[in-house]
């Protein structure tokens, strides 16, 4: 290999070793050792990624780097799939986010989970998640990506159901897994279509084939892109498969921060960016991605307006922000989408961790109606949370100000559909600012509405990560969308349309104004005078619709889950299983039993009857042998071999 050693295969393997150690031995190890193993594993991965990033930064490493240090995984006929690790601009950024934010959240977890029964189990799962996530990001072909994709789903299931003694947590885990399976089915069909049409699953080869054939658009490429996007809607919680993410908040809060906000749920965006060369060839698929993204952004934001559980507000916010990212992908502004993915990883992880700190301070209380007045009680949490709220609201010069603006500007620049979607995004920005500041006011301002609790600031193992993420949330956008896009362009291409300077500043101004509008409304409704309750009472239908999340869960239950259960019970269980399969089994058993009952009479256990059969048999043989001599014409002739 030319160039410096990068140790890329170690990035997933080290967390895997951590998982094996903690998973097998963790129960017997002291807590300090479990923590040490769990923290060192992601740290090593992060250092390896950082090392590679510094080499790239200093110009001594040219991307992409494709390492083939293992024999082929699958080699059947013309199909070859290998374990190669791919490091290009896109995966480098993603790896930095995954391992960096991942490590920070591991540190936070040490403080947050210190009193938990399954401490070792928690960290084993968390390391397992990092293993699969890095496999997903590093994958050079769609099948390895699928392995990581399924693996993070497994880790997500295990961690959502971490408190499996609670029915709601166990059910939420199952819901997440099953809903994701629906999306994965689409992903799989996409893989098969890729294999059928290109004969390979390696991203670079597919891209090369498409480059060699510039006329190929639409048709099967649209089908592939849409199938892959179905997978993305499952993993990244977009309409109509977003329903699992709010329920996933049953898991521990650091898990919500790492898996269900910062990294795993962004895998869909990453996948679309990774396979952008397919989406680029299908205007229809791109439009679908953009519309679904914008619709999800608006839809989830409206639900977020009235939620009372602090984590659920953040969950709907995550769904909404992921919608923004898909909006960016849908207008082919992949670098803007990844840029927003990065800033979102910072501020949303921070929001969740700060919310976790609030919950920790109140001894497990998650209902914002029983919070309030925490500003002075937990000042560090308050200030870091404030940074995150400002960041997500698109406050000037905070991180999302740059990234959200990049997406909105790209949407505005792409045709008349884009202008509609841009407006949806702008409305969503107002709603986002509103529900974030609503959360902020309800949690930290006014009088305490929780008289039982004695709020206490969290330990430094939790506050440290908050501070680091706050710095990143504030400064993470300063790299600038243009420079970020230029860096990513070898991986995801560049956009043709660019806005002129003036329009871009107008866009920026409008986005900021939208954010301030949201803040202003939240301020009027939730700061001293609580006018929101009156407003909600005056519109009971609308409020109920939002508070019940548009009854989507209920609709799914009636339209899909119950018919499916009924079909399973009456057709599959009663008719197919019990009647047909069970009946066949009984029939075969009956035949065998009957035969046995007849034949067992032979085995009387009477010694003399056996002997009689023996003698009879010998006599019959004798008759057979002698019959020709006695009744036939043959004479008995003795032949003796010896003579």
């Amino acid at each position: 290999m030319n160039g410096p050693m990068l140790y890329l295969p170690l990035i997933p393997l080290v967390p895997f070793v951590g998982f094996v150690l903690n998973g097998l031995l963790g129960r017997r190890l002291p807590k300090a050792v479990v923590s040490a193993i769990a923290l060192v594993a992601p740290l090593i991965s992060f250092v390896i990624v950082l090392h590679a990033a510094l080499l790239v930064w200093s110009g001594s490493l040219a991307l992409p780097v494709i390492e083939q240090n293992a024999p082929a995984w699958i080699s059947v006929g013309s199909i070859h799939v290998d374990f190669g690790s791919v490091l290009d601009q896109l995966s480098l950024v993603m790896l930095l986010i995954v391992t960096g934010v991942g490590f920070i959240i591991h540190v936070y977890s040490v403080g947050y989970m210190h009193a938990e029964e399954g401490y070792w189990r928690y960290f084993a799962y968390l390391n397992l998640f990092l293993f699969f996530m890095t496999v997903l990001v590093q994958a050079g072909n769609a099948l390895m990506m699928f392995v990581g994709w399924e693996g993070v789903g497994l880790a997500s299931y295990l961690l959502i159901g971490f408190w499996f003694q609670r029915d709601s947590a166990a059910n939420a885990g199952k819901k997440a897994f099953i809903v994701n399976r629906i999306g994965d089915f689409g992903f799989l069909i996409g893989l098969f279509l890729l294999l059928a049409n290109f004969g390979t699953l390696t991203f670079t080869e597919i891209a090369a084939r498409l480059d060699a054939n510039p006329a190929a658009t639409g048709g099967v490429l649209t089908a592939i892109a849409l199938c892959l996007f179905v997978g993305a809607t499952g993993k990244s919680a977009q309409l109509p498969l977003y329903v699992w993410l709010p329920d996933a908040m049953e898991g521990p809060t650091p898990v919500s921060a790492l898996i269900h906000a910062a990294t795993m749920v962004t895998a869909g965006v990453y996948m679309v960016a990774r396979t952008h060369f397919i989406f680029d060839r299908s205007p229809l698929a791109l439009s679908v991605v953009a519309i679904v993204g914008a619709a999800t952004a608006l839809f989830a934001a409206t639900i977020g307006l009235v939620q009372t559980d602090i984590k659920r507000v953040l969950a709907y916010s995550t769904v909404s922000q992921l919608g923004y990212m898909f909006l960016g992908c849908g207008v082919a502004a992949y670098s803007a989408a990844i840029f927003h993915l990065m800033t979102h990883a910072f501020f949303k992880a921070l929001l969740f961790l700060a919310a976790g700190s609030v919950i920790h301070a109140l001894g497990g209380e998650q209902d914002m109606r029983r919070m309030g007045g925490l500003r002075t009680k937990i000042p560090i949490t308050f200030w870091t949370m404030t940074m995150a709220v400002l960041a997500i609201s698109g406050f000037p010069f905070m991180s999302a100000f740059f990234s959200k603006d990049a997406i909105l500007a790209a949407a505005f620049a792409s045709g008349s559909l884009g202008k509609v979607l841009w407006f949806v995004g702008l409305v969503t920005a107002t709603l986002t600012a509103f529900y974030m500041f609503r959360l902020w006011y309800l949690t930290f301002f006014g009088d305490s509405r929780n008289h039982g609790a004695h709020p206490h600031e969290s330990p430094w193992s939790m506050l440290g990560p908050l501070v680091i993420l706050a710095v990143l949330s504030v400064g993470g956008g300063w790299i600038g969308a243009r420079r970020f896009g230029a860096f990513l362009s070898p991986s995801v291409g560049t956009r043709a349309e660019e806005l002129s300077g003036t329009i871009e500043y107008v866009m920026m101004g409008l986005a900021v104004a939208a954010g301030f509008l949201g803040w202003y409304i939240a301020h009027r409704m939730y700061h001293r005078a609580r006018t929101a309750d009156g407003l909600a009472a005056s519109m009971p239908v609308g409020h109920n619709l939002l508070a019940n999340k548009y009854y989507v869960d209920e609709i799914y239950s009636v339209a899909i889950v119950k018919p499916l259960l009924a079909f399973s019970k009456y057709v599959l269980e009663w008719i197919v299983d019990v009647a047909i399969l069970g009946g066949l089994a009984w029939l075969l058993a009956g035949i065998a039993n009957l035969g046995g009952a007849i034949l067992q009479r032979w085995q009387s256990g009477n010694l003399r009857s056996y002997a009689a059969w023996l003698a009879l048999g010998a006599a019959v043989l004798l008759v057979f042998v002698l019959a020709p001599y006695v009744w036939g014409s043959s004479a008995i002739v003795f032949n003796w071999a010896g003579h």
Partner: protein
Amino acid sequence: MNSLHMVSHEVPLVWYLLLSAVLFCLGVVGFLIKRNLITVFMSIELMLNAVNLSFVTFAHQWHQVKGQIFVFFVMMVAAAEAAVGLAIIIAVFRARATLAVDRIDLMKL
């Protein structure tokens, strides 16, 4: 080649074989109808010796020593069988206080 009719100055070969067959049938019948384990055992010995007789007859007829050697093997096995068999019979009698074959049926389904 020799044939059955060439030894007319001696007791004919057929008589030996007939005796052997009669003894063997007696053994079989005894084995089938007697109830006492010892009698059954003796019937087996009778069958073995009937076979021995035919071996010796043929050995004499064909001037082959192999038949005679085989008889020694059979007698040896019969002796060993008698030793083991009688020991089992004694053990059975001690345990069950009967030697009726029909009553020794613990293995029956």
